[in-house]
């Protein structure tokens, strides 16, 4: 089936939802309502249960990247001595913080910070800088990196810290977190995660109703509103639209001939151009490890919900070693009928990227699976070579076409 690319109708609701979220947070700045800055992999249910507004500097970094304002903010950070080689989200955030600028005039100031290192060690350093600058409490959750299976001791270590966090957050707000409220939030989060996972699974259909470039945009609510009813409502609406597409055979990429997987963060400042380039080759990005990172299930019926929370937050894709990553990629390739995999070697994200050459080697040599490595960055367009990326994509797609022929 071919034809025009069909826009996603529910996207209008997304714009409205995110506006409400940011405006609501901005408005809370001058009230008694507490605001916490939080890393994207941290247990936000704790904040929702405490009535604290979560703010995600990483999401803001992505927003600045997509709006192409990240580089000027990075330059502010660099003029204050931050190396050009550190994470471009962090530099974007520091630039906004130091200049009190950026989209929406910057983020509402934090009353405290909540950092979990299950996504990288970089956030540890990033949040230390924030702690010194804003002089507010930094709550920290240490999730040991897993080179193999999670040991019971590692799960218990994370659980014990979650118990402490419950007390610490209650201490800051002045109102202890009620267990019922927390469990209610965990149920809501588990449900939203489940719906998000189901939504991504719809992309296994041929043709895929949605492209990973779409999921990178629609990922915002599951990151920032996990544990809220409006998150569930949003994804139910989006799922309904996508099910309709599947039923009527509407393709995200008209005339879909190739299905690819994506590994690592998006290149926020070139989303449009990259999406177009792949679409020209009739290639749909039908799966992405980045999008499925937020589909990490929480069992809502677990006997010990805190342990279940600990297990879930500890075992996210990016907190696991290369053996698990190879398996995840291989499973993803089978489940979504992928023809190849695009590894975004993101200069800004050493946690996600270092090891990708080994993944590429393993998939190519040991599994005869085609892999394309693109050297880029999620936010810093100064290190992005347009022509080189284009010609590498073209060559890869030609190779895939030859394989199919």
């Amino acid at each position, binding site marked *: 089936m071919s034809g025009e690319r069909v826009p996603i109708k529910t996207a209008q609701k997304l714009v409205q939802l995110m506006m409400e979220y940011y405006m609501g947070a901005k408005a809370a700045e001058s009230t008694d309502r507490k605001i916490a800055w939080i890393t994207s992999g941290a247990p936000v249910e704790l904040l929702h249960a405490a009535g604290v507004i979560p703010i995600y500097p990483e999401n803001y970094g992505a927003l600045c990247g997509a709006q192409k304002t990240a580089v000027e903010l990075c330059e502010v950070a660099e003029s204050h001595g931050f190396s050009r080689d550190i994470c471009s989200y962090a530099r974007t955030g520091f630039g906004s913080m130091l200049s009190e600028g950026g989209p929406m005039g910057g983020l509402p100031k934090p009353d405290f910070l909540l950092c979990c290192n299950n996504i990288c*060690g970089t956030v540890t350093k990033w949040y230390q800088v924030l702690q010194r600058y804003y002089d507010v409490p930094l709550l*920290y959750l240490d999730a040991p990196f897993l080179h193999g299976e999670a040991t019971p001791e*590692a799960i218990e270590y994370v659980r014990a810290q979650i118990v402490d966090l419950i007390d610490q957050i209650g201490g800051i707000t002045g109102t202890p977190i009620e267990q019922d409220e927390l469990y209610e939030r965990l149920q809501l989060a588990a449900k939203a995660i489940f719906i998000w996972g189901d939504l991504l699974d719809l992309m296994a259909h041929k043709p895929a109703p949605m492209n990973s470039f779409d999921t990178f945009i629609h990922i915002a609510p599951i990151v920032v509103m996990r544990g809220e009813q409006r998150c569930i409502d949003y994804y139910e609406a989006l799922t309904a639209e996508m099910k309709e597409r599947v039923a009527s055979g509407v393709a995200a990429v008209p005339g879909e001939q190739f299905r690819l997987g994506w590994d690592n963060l998006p290149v926020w400042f070139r989303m449009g151009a990259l999406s177009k380039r792949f679409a020209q080759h009739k290639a749909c990005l039908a799966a992405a490890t980045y999008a499925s990172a937020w589909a990490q299930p929480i069992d809502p019926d677990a006997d010990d919900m805190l342990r279940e929370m600990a297990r879930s937050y500890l075992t996210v894709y990016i907190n696991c*070693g290369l053996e698990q990553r190879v398996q995840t990629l291989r499973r993803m390739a089978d489940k979504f009928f992928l023809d190849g995999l695009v590894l975004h*070697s993101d200069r800004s994200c050493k946690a996600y*990227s270092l090891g990708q*050459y*080994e993944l590429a080697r*393993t998939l190519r040599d040991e599994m005869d699976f085609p892999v394309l490595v693109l050297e880029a960055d999620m936010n810093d367009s100064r290190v992005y070579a347009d022509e080189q990326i284009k010609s590498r994509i073209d060559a890869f797609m030609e190779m895939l076409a030859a394989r199919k022929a």
Partner: protein
Amino acid sequence: MTPQTAALLEPFEAVCADPYATARAAADGGRKVAGYLCTYSPEELLHAAGCLPVRIFGYSDGTQRADGLLQAYACSLARAALDLALSGQLDFLSLTVFPHTCDTVQNLADVWRRNVRGGLHVTLATPVNVESDHAVRFYRAELERVRDLLAAVNGPIGDDDLAASIALHNKHRAAMRRLYAARRANPGVLSGRDLLTVVLSSFLMPKEDHLGLLLELDSALESAPAAPAPSPKVFVAGALCQNADYIGAIEDAGCVVVDDDLCTGSRAFAVEEQACDDPLEALARMYLSRRPCASKHRPAYSFGRDVLSRARQAQADGVIFLFTKFCDPWAFDYPDMRKALEEAGVPSLLVEIEQHVAPAAQFHTRVAAFAEMVEALHGGANERATS
């Protein structure tokens, strides 16, 4: 430097001249050699397992072999160390230990296991938040897991063996701190370059042997008459420095390096004894309470405050930051350190280094300009003080 000191230094220099010759000879003689990547590796446990622990550095002349496995934005330690292993020069190792530190090393550990042949590969989940009782409990369990893994090498490790190893290493670290103290009191008595040679050799040879030589050196330096020291006095800080030529280049520019905050330096020995009956718990507490690496989280600790107070304690006139390019944890702390020094009127210089590359001409030029600037400031202050 007196002829006596020069003679005492010879064995340390000999080890550094061919860094892995000592360990290779030990392996040839039947001793199991354990390679480890950073100073968060509990050498005590490896020693108690009957192994010779040696530290893995990036002593490779290039990174060509590693470039296909690690991006160019991995730090030079990671790339050059992997390259060295891929070249076969570390084939004498019976096992390798990777403690958790930064994003680069955690991924390097897996790349290493999948590409470097032979031997037992051990990863150790050192907690990142080093200041909590939960972390002590978890880390003790991790150490116990590793102790049991190591039983495969030379048999089970008893508590007494481990306690004896801890005692030996405590003695060694105390002797290294003595050496640093002797130099702070009398900087002209031993160059910073020679100090780094003593430090580096301590990671490359049996601790018992190093301790014996070190105690002799300590006594000699402590009883040495006050020696004229060059000026300005400089404090050096960074992740690590595997090449004494960098310190040599700073001193060739007319400075004397009086103290440091390096992982191949004072930080490696800033580990205090712990009064604790259970040797595994003692180890856990020792490694968590040590002066932290930038990759760790210690809630109230400030690298800015620490570098300033330590530079002052050493009566340094300036600070030189040896920045290993792409060392993210350290790069995040640098602006805070620079600011703390600036506010206190202590001049500082940042120079990027690649661990496996010798100091380039630009390094010499920048350090010389800095030395001149500090000397001018310093001289000016002295004139004002005497007028």
